[in-house]
């Protein structure tokens, strides 16, 4: 039997407390009104730096609107006669506006100031038509501030949502792996079954937390899911057309059904696995075999729908057909990595007598293989959309490449290049520290993957990995450790009467 070391327990609690502090801080400092946003923008400008490339395009557009018109008044007659065709005038106006922008930027002392395409477009259109409408500019500014307010208010919620979803899906990934090992009658893995079962124990609290977050969205407590906002839907024909699927009631029923199904299988399989230890025949093993096969069918259907519901629907104007597989690969490899890391921890503490380097080697091969599989899906999705460049699809990647450049491409390095180069070597796959290093990078990389899936739609270019994001990770990591290691203490770490346990004990590769 495993005893939860008090140091690890303290560590888990410290993580949770730090996490709550971080989350609380980010909620506390999130702006409440438009005035707060304007204060933040003003402060950033006073300090002469931007939180990111965005900061205050509306301000600039607003402030420089008069300059633009003045410049146009000077430049347009000098370049073109007054009776030039409209198209030409628009063209030249574009050029002038650009140059004025550049000058304004230099004058204001902003380095690398990169204005929002949208705002720039508005300014161009305005300049081209030659309207000197201060009211329009002011409205535009107000709308922009409101947009920014929503993004900043979403930030702490999204941080919690990403971390909660990621940790729950790790546990689901481990459960799917467990089901596959059962259904495939794998001979190598039964010595690891109790570890997998313990990791899947987090599914119960994890799913409840995610469900609560979804319900809070339906109650308009947060705006992660924009299609839940009736005011938005009222003006949005695309979402209206999807409302047969994307409506709160059906959404919550689906979520409850999926989570219920997963938890049901998890509890049933765990119960049978423990009962098999005390049994005289293999009936419980056979029950688990059948349940696992059934679960895998249920899982792949619900997993796909889950990915549309909880992840893709944050971008309700966008869709991708291989998205379900992509999300699956991401949390499946994270689940396997977690199994490997917890196995190594328990092994290092001397609890897993029969686990040898060949078991670790097999887990590392799965980490390697599924990392490549994830990359394959990531690239397939990206490349198909990039290649065809259909405007309604490509915006998804455009925002990510423009606003999330480092996280977007950084995760490819973390989830593909690093594990592939380090785990390709057979000898390396047997070294604990290599597997732990690769595992850490893979887990961090896939957190960023989920970050990239959710954040661009909810906080846009206001993203930052700060107190809220790190706090949320720490909190859920602490909770995960606490739940998983508590579950480990509940049963012996070696499944006694599993028909394949002898083979697994002597597994070598």
């Amino acid at each position, binding site marked *: 039997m495993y005893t939860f070391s008090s140091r690890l327990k303290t560590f888990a609690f410290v993580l949770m407390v730090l996490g709550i502090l971080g989350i609380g801080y980010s909620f506390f400092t999130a702006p409440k009104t438009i005035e707060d946003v304007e204060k933040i923008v003003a402060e950033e400008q006073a300090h002469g730096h931007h939180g990111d490339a965005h900061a205050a395009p509306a301000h600039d557009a607003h402030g420089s609107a008069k300059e633009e018109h003045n410049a146009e008044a000077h430049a347009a007659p000098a370049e073109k006669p007054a009776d030039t065709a409209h198209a030409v005038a628009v063209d030249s106006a574009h050029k002038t506006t650009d140059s004025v922008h550049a000058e304004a930027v230099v004058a204001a002392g902003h380095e690398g100031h990169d204005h929002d395409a949208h705002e720039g477009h508005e300014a161009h259109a305005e300049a081209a038509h030659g309207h000197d409408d201060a009211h329009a500019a002011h409205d535009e500014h107000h709308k922009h501030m409101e947009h920014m307010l929503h993004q900043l208010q979403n930030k702490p919620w999204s941080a919690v949502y990403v971390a909660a979803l990621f940790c729950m899906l790790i546990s689901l990934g481990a459960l799917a792996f467990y089901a596959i090992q059962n259904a495939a009658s794998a001979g190598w893995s039964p010595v690891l079954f109790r570890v997998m079962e313990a990791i899947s124990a987090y599914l119960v609290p994890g799913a409840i937390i995610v469900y609560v977050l979804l319900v809070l969205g339906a109650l308009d407590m947060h705006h992660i899911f924009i299609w839940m906002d009736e005011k938005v839907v009222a003006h949005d024909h695309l979402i209206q057309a999807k409302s047969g699927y994307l409506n709160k009631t059906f959404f919550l029923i689906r979520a409850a059904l999926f989570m219920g199904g997963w938890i049901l299988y998890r509890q049933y399989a765990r119960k049978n696995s423990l009962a098999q230890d005390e049994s005289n025949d293999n009936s419980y093993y056979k029950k688990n075999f059948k349940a696992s096969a059934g679960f895998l069918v249920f899982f792949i259907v619900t997993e796909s729908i889950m990915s549309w519901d909880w992840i893709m629907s944050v971008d309700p104007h966008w869709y991708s057909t291989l998205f379900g597989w992509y999300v699956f690969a991401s949390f499946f490899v994270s689940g396997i990595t977690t199994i490997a890391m917890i196995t190594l921890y328990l092994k290092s503490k001397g609890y897993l007598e029969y686990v040898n380097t060949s078991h670790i080697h097999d887990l590392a091969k799965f980490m390697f293989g599924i990392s490549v599989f994830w990359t394959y899906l990531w690239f397939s999705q990206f490349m198909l959309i990039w*290649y065809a460049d259909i405007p309604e699809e490509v915006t998804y990647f455009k925002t990510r490449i423009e606003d999330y450049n480092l996280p977007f491409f950084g995760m490819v390095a973390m989830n593909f290049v690093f594990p592939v180069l380090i785990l390709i070597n057979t000898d390396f796959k047997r070294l604990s520290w290599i597997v732990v290093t690769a595992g850490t990078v893979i887990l961090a990389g896939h957190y960023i993957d989920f970050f990239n899936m959710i954040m661009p739609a909810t906080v846009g270019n206001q993203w930052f990995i700060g107190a809220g994001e790190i706090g949320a990770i720490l909190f859920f990591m602490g909770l995960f450790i606490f739940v998983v290691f508590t579950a480990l203490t509940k049963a012996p770490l070696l499944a006694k009467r599993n028909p394949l346990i002898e083979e697994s004990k002597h597994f070598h590769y």
Partner: protein
Amino acid sequence: MSNKVIHVLYNDDDILMDAVKKTRAAHHHIEEIYTPFPVHGLDKAMGLAPTRLAICAFLYGLVGLSVATSMMWFIMIQDWPQDIGGKPSFSYIQNMPAFVPVMFEMTVFFAAHLMVITFYMRSKLWPFKDAENPDVRTTDDHFLMEVAVHGDVDQMVSFFEGTHAVEVKVIEKH
């Protein structure tokens, strides 16, 4: 005297493995073992050095990747950067997603084929090569261990007869 070898035949791979361990313990030098199928763990029991073919394959893969990259960079970006359907051919990185399928396939192609050719060369296999099996039964159901003779031949023969061999022969090698 020095070009004499002993051919010891077995009809079971487990017995062969035991015999290999005993032979190694008795410090007889195993020249070669002929088996009809791969015997798991035989190389370890014989103390053979691990293969380096995988390292070769990795390096060949890198060569393939370089060939693909430099080829497409030269053709598509450097030599004639045409606008084909609006694809940005200003620099390699801008149009890279379109090149990845070729880069991937070329990496696999080079890694696979060059490794196979390396394997053929290192194991001296080619068409019309004369077969080297010393006993035709080794391709069907017998295992043959060839041991270099040193010291007392009769003593060695009796040693190998004690390892459950089905046949022990002393052969003069040319």
